């Protein structure tokens, strides 16, 4: 029935969950699946287990999706190079003129100053949502769904 597929990609460990004791990746998957069912979106919810799966995604898989929601977890603050891979992933999908939203559970600006400087994607827009906890995913899904309907 649905003709649009949304990929939700979560960073390894989703370590921000440490500060959200009532949340688990399973719980997030559950609420996201429920909303996507309601909106008629096919959902592919993935937990990246390492850099390799990300690179594979960038090389091969990105054309299969109509929209991307990405939670880089604590990458913006841990100094890892993997954040660049996430941003590259976002850029590649955005350059295909597909909706992309970066989601963080916590308000990352309260944790560290000036942690977010996405790479430049000329003529594309990448959405950004932080601080809403699990509701940030729902906000992002609704935004992506509406954007797909407008295009």
């Amino acid at each position, binding site marked *: 029935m649905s003709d649009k597929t949304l990929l939700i990609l979560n960073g390894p460990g989703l370590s921000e969950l440490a500060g959200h004791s009532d949340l688990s990746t399973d719980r997030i998957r559950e609420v996201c699946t429920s909303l996507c069912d309601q909106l008629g979106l096919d959902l592919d919810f993935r937990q990246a287990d390492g850099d390799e799966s990300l690179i594979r995604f960038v090389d091969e898989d990105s054309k299969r999706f109509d929209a991307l929601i990405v939670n880089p977890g604590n990458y913006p603050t841990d100094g890892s190079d993997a954040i660049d891979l996430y941003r590259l992933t976002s850029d590649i999908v955005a350059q295909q003129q597909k909706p992309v*939203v970066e989601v963080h559970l916590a*308000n990352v*600006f*309260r944790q560290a*100053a*000036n942690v*977010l*400087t*996405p790479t*430049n*994607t000329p003529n594309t*827009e*990448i*959405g*950004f*949502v*932080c*601080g*809403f906890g699990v*509701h*940030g995913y*729902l*906000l992002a899904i*609704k*935004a992506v769904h*509406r*954007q797909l309907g407008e295009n």
Partner: protein
Amino acid sequence: MKVNRKAYVINGPNLNLLGTREPEIYGTDTLEIIAERCRDQGRKVGLEVVFLQSNYEGEIVEWIQQAIKEADAIVINAAAYTHTSVAIHDALKTFPGYKIELHISNPHLRESFRHVSHVSSAVDAVVAGLGVRGYDLVIDLLPEMLSHD
């Protein structure tokens, strides 16, 4: 607890020009269209929306102070003052309710002078780059966020 919950949606400088100013970045909807959409969405979810815009920093500070007495939540698009105003940061810090920073475009993808926000660290949550859709989407979500307070 107030029965009818109220949200101030505060818009900063040049947002009165929406629809005509750089439509490739900000879209073709006017601020009045966005305001009406927010009020409609508010009625659906049981939230009174007070929609405001000013080109003056001091007026924005006064609205935030007024919200302390009158509102449960603030959604603020401080526009250019985002990157310059310590006064707006300080005022937001005094507001005890739920606070959301909103931007139509994603400032981090634009000129480097837009990369610093004095608003982000004073609010609970940030939404950017979702276009004008961001406004009614956060109004839709606000009752849920207020129920956790």
